[in-house]
Every structure is written in structure tokens, then in C-alpha cells.
């Protein structure tokens, strides 16, 4: 009924291989984009942006990045927090060194620097895999956090070791600093999200993505059919770190404004992003969004219901939140290991036939 393919003909190869081959799906995608770009910026306030949209958008980029590495290429990484820190500190150094340059450029260069660091820490993946690789990336996490805490050059020798984002602009509009308008920071992050998602989607269904998936499914077989594991693995690390670096830069500069590396980019950050892609669905761009939305919105909703609505004590709600999120992760792993993305796929199949499934 909803997903009717009758009368939906593809007459050329590009049409046949587009991301949303079903017309209804395509229109829904355009509608989402339209609302995100032209409706939300006019209706949101500080609370909505800072509590829900910015964390959602920024975590979505990080989740897309990690999903490329873990979900598509099968290389388990626990270094996400450390790589986000690289993006944040690179962005900070660039912002303070070249104040007149547009933030767009700073964030992109921060992503490129992180990609370089990611490739370096990706080298061990050529020799080790699975749990051993996870431990190696864990070492990256701790090393990077230690480095940014230890070397004062990274935080411009400030007394407290905090980095704080000064006011910087894009096309003359402020996007960082305390006087930023809600819509400006939202649109700035949204632009990066769309850019990341489109690139990631097209990479993963092209030659690169096929190589990554071949490595994921069986690396020896992939090597025999001619996939170069060095290039495939390192390119996955580079692309993944590029997105994670962008999200780290936005996380620091646009969302928080001031960070302390141990607190903001600690090991918990790595696990949060990993949970997002596990709940959302490994190897799915939509899953990255769903997982990020789930883990960002759920605590806010629980808080609204528990504290503001039912008037429960704040500590009980905070504890309940841990219990509920933990339980949901376990339930998801048991009941639907492929995450929210799989639920969506199943729902789509059902809707295609609805209301006459036979």
C-alpha cells in the first residue's frame, strides 16, 4: 500500500541504482530534508538546539564514522573518544592560529588531521584483528587523552588545561561562541551531517564499500579475489577517522564551547558511540542516525517524564536511566542483533504488502 512499486519504472542505470529506488521512499527523504532545512531552523529555540538537535546531529556523524570502520569493514575500534579529541584539539589550534579563516575550513581540516592520526593507529589492524585490535585501539584512546592532557602546547598553555572556543564565523555569521543564534549552529551542524551521510552512503555502495565488506566477511577470501587489505583497511580507518574528527571538532566548538579532554573524550565516549551503532544497526547509515537519536533523546525523555512530569527525585531518575539504557542494550542484542535499522527494514517489507499480505 505505502511502498507500492507498481508503475515505478527505472529506464536508465542511474535511476536503477539510486539510493531510494522506490518513489514513496524518495519523496519521504525529500520531505525530511525539507523539514530539516526549511522548517526546523525557524521554529527552534536554545533548549531544543542545545539539548536535542546538536548532540543528535554531532553523534550521528560520529556514529556514521564508526559504522564505516566497525559495521562495514569489520575492524572493532574503541578509540572513538580519542579520535574525537584529535578533531577537537586540531580545530582549537586552527581556530586560535587563524582566526579570520571560515569555520567550515577549520572543521574540514580538523577532519583531515584526524584521518591521518587514524591511519597511523590503523596500521596494527594489518597484523591483528578482533579482540586484539580492540585492545590496540583502546591504547590509542588512552594515549591520545594522555597526550592532550600532558602537552601544554595543545591547550595553548592555559592555566587550567581547558580549551574554549572563541567566536568564529562562517560567511559572516557566528557559529561558535556564546552569542551564536540557535538556527546558525543547527544549520552549520546539519550541513556537515548531510555532507557526511551522502559521502558515506556513496562510498559504502561503491567499489570502496564492496572492498570493505569483503574484508569484513572474510579477509583471506577477499585477498584471494584481489582486494588489497592494506589499502582497504587503511582507507576505512582514514574515512572513519575523518568523520569522527569532524564530529569531535563540532562537539567542542559548536556544542560544548569548552572541554576538558579527560572528561569530554574519555573511554565512556567511545562506548557511547559504539552502543549507538550496535543499537542502531551495524553496517547501515540509517542505523547510525537511529542509534544516535535513540541514545540522545531517550535520557531527555526519561528526565522529562520522571522529574518534570511525575516529580520523582532526580537521583532516582538518573539511576533508572542507567538501568533502562543498559536493559535495552541487552534486549536489543538478544532480540534484534541487527538493531533499529533491521526493525525498519522489516517494517518496510510489511508495509509494502499491507493491507493484503497474501
Amino acid at each position, binding site marked *: 500500500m505505502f511502498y507500492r512499486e507498481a508503475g515505478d519504472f527505472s529506464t536508465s542505470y542511474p535511476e536503477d541504482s539510486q539510493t531510494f529506488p522506490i518513489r514513496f521512499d524518495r519523496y519521504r527523504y525529500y520531505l525530511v530534508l525539507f523539514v530539516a532545512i526549511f522548517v526546523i531552523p525557524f521554529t527552534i529555540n*536554545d*533548549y531544543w538546539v*542545545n*539539548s536535542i538537535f546538536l*548532540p543528535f546531529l554531532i553523534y550521528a556523524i560520529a556514529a556514521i564514522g564508526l559504522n564505516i570502520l566497525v559495521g562495514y569493514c569489520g575492524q572493532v575500534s574503541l578509540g572513538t573518544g580519542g579520535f574525537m579529541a584529535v578533531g577537537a584539539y586540531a580545530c582549537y589550534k586552527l581556530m586560535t592560529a587563524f582566526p579570520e579563516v571560515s569555520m567550515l575550513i577549520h572543521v574540514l581540516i580538523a577532519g583531515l588531521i584526524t584521518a591521518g592520526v587514524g591511519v597511523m593507529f590503523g596500521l596494527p589492524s594489518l597484523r591483528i584483528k578482533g579482540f586484539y585490535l580492540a585492545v590496540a585501539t583502546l591504547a590509542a584512546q588512552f594515549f591520545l587523552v594522555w597526550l592532550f*592532557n600532558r602537552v601544554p602546547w595543545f591547550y595553548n598553555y592555559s*592555566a*587550567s*588545561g*581547558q580549551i*574554549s572556543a*572563541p*567566536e568564529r564565523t562562517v560567511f559572516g555569521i557566528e557559529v561558535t*561562541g*556564546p*552569542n551564536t543564534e540557535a538556527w546558525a549552529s543547527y544549520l552549520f551542524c546539519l550541513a556537515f551531517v548531510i555532507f557526511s551521510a551522502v559521502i558515506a552512503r556513496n562510498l559504502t555502495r561503491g567499489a570502496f564499500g564492496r572492498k570493505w565488506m569483503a574484508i569484513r566477511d572474510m579477509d583471506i577470501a577477499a585477498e584471494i579475489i584481489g582486494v588489497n587489505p592494506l589499502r582497504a583497511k587503511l582507507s576505512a580507518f582514514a574515512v572513519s577517522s575523518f568523520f569522527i574528527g569532524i564530529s569531535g571538532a563540532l562537539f567542542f566548538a559548536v*556544542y*560544548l*564551547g*569548552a*572541554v*576538558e579532554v*579527560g*572528561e*569530554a573524550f*574519555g573511554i565512556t565516549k567511545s562506548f557511547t558511540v559504539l552502543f549507538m551503532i550496535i543499537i542502531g544497526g551495524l553496517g547501515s547509515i540509517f542505523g547510525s542516525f537511529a542509534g544516535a537519536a535513540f541514545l540522545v533523546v531517550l535520557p*531527555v525523555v526519561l*528526565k522529562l517524564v520522571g*522529574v*518534570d*512530569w*511525575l*516529580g520523582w*527525585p*532526580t*537521583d532516582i*531518575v*538518573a*539511576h533508572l536511566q*542507567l538501568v533502562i539504557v543498559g536493559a535495552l542494550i541487552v534486549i536489543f542484542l538478544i532480540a534484534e542483533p541487527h538493531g533499529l535499522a533491521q526493525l525498519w527494514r522489516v517494517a518496510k517489507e510489511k508495509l509494502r504488502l499491507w493491507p493484503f499480505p497474501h
Partner: protein
Amino acid sequence: MKMKLGTMAVAAVMAASPVMADLVFPSLSYRTGPYAAGGIPFADGYADYMNLLNARDGGIGGVMTNVLECETGYNTEKGVECYESTKGQGALVYQPLSTGITYQLIPKATADGIPIHSMGYGRTSAANGDVFSNVFNYPANYWNGASGAINYLMSQGDIAGKKIALVYHNSAYGKEPIRTLEELAKKHGFELTLLPVDHPGQEQKSQWLQIRREKPDNVIMYGWGVMNQVAVQEAANIRYPMEDFIGIWWSGSENDVLPAGDAADGYKALTFHGVGDDFPVFADIQKYVVDAGNAAGAGDQVGTVLYNRGLYAAMLAAEAAKTAQEIHGTGDITPAMMRDGMEALEITEAKMTALGLPGFGPEFSVSCENHGGPGLIGMTQWDASAKTWSLINEFAPSDMDVIQPLIDEDSAAYAAENNIASSCK
């Protein structure tokens, strides 16, 4: 069932809505996580004092107070969410009780025109009100604390040539005193060793091994949360003399010394307010708040060090609100008026006695240039057999000759970085 839920929701909203017209004091508390042991008593003290004002005096200047509690878990991301969700409800002053969250809120709250009171924490150079128009850290800050500790040691004997170790939480908070201590080391000729401890601070074996090897004459600690008790326990394990071990005020509560038992006897901590529950106000709290069943949290923290600090913070906020009401001649003050009240705040002995807190803290007054107060530091010592802290050194001034240039330098750098014009004409 649906109807019931709906009516319940309506009832909840109705019950919550008349509160909106009150004086709103958000409390960004943390009753969960590794720092909860410190967050709970502070939040309880803050809420209980505001409750007391409502029950005994009918609020402040005839307007009821309302404490909006929001759980941050000492986490900056949740701190942002708490700030955004409470600021729209007329929040008068923020007390985040976290240096990280304070750093983050300084530019935001200044842009929104809401004052921040980071009492004994936060960014030390915010004492310069000329640059930080909306941030207050009276009556004492980290650098006063560092200097107070050194002054105390000097009063006990010559410290030239001695070795002093700083064990600190490896974060913005713990790093704050380093510059001051380095300057003081130059001035007085002692040797400073830095020993960082990473969050959350449960692992300190290597730091204390180093202390055992180098045998510093004194150890100063800037710790918070679970780090404190671990440090006191480790010091006891290597038999470091507790009399030579001094904690900042955030490392000097019952939670920090009780786990080590008798071994913690003699441990010292700095303070900027009174300890114990030997003040008339506690009888009122018992009568109007605890006995009425309105005590915040479990109600078992009354009279502990951090409870007293929360109470002191609430008292200073209430007095500032009173001052603001007098200046502007209205009961319903706005955050901007609250800021004026904080800047004109004057705490005298007579005022404190009238509030039932005689001699609880130093006398001081705030001005546009000086948001930091006088920085008078006292010293307390733990008695493990009686399980009490006692004040062993009266509130004494710290070395402003060293601190003031550092404040001026750091705030000038901030002003230049953010293009802030002088706010005091």
C-alpha cells in the same frame, strides 16, 4: 486508563505551574556517579536552607523560593542540558558545583545575563569583576586556598628548602593552583613536586609510591569525590604523617576521612566557613524542615562539612536576593537585578548573627572590581575518635601580592581573547 494518565498529567502540570512566579534557584546537583559523595550533602544543604526560608520567613522579602534541582552527574553534557532547561524558568543564579561546567557556563550565562556563583571553585580569575561581569567566586578561591595552605605551613616553621608535593585531580580544577604554588615556591624557596591523579582517582598507587620515596615534608591535595578517600587511605598505608597532609576545602569532608578510620586522625583541610552544627540555625532547620518531613535527600547530612557549604551558598544567595530586592524596590527580581544584588552584597557579623550563623564565615563585601571577596582561609583538623572536624586556625588573609597579579594577567588574557570591554566605569 488513558483518561487517568491524562488527568494525572494535567494535575501534575497544575501542581507545578503556580511555582513559576517564585524566586527560582536552580541547583545543578549530582547525586549519582563518582562524585556523588560530595554532591549529595551540598545539594541537601542548599535545598534545606531555601526550604527553611519558605517555612520560617515566608520566602525572601515575602516571595517564596523554589529550588529547581537538575542532575548533572558532574558531566558537562548533562550540565548544558540542565542549564538550557532551567534558564527559561527564571533562574536567578547558577551554582554548578563543578569547575568544568562553570568554565562552560561562563560565556553562555554572561551572554544570557544570568549570574554564576562559583563559591570556592570555578575559574579563579573570575574574581576580576571588571572582566567577568556575571561571575562571582566570593568569599575565597583556589589560589587563596593554595596561599592559605602555604601561610599556615609558614606559621608552623620555616619552609625554605622544604619539599612540598601537590597531589591533584588531573583536570581544570586540580590544575588551577599550580601557577600560584610555583610563584610561592619561588618567593619562599620551597621545592614543589606535582603529582597528577587521573579521573576518577581510584588508582593512586604510583603517586603515593613516589611520595614514599621522596618523603616530602608536606603534601597538599586538590581532590574531589572518590579520589579523596583513596588518597587518605593510601597516605595511611605508607604511614605518611597525617598532620603534614593538607587538603583543599573540597578534600575535607567526613566522607573523605571516615573510610580510613583511626588512621586518618590529624588530617587537615582548609576551609572558608564554619564547621559543625553548633549554630542556632540548625535548631530552626530541625524544627521547620527536618521535623516537618521536608528535608532534601535522605536528611542524614545535616551538619556535615559539605552540607554546611551548601547551606552557606544558599545563605549568600538569599542575602544577595534580599540586597537586590532592596536596591530595585521589588520582590520579584530578575536575573539582572540578582546580579546587582550580588555585586552589592555585604556580609557583616551582625547579619550572620541575625541569621543564626554567628562567626560562620568571614565578614566581606563585594564590589564591581572585586568579585572574589577577601580570600580569608581557615584550617580544620579531623579528630577520628570524636569523628568531628574542628577549626584549628582562624580565618587568615592569603598572599594577595602573589595572587592579584596572576588574577589580572589571566583575566586580561581572557578579555583580549574574547574582546570584552571593561564593565566597571
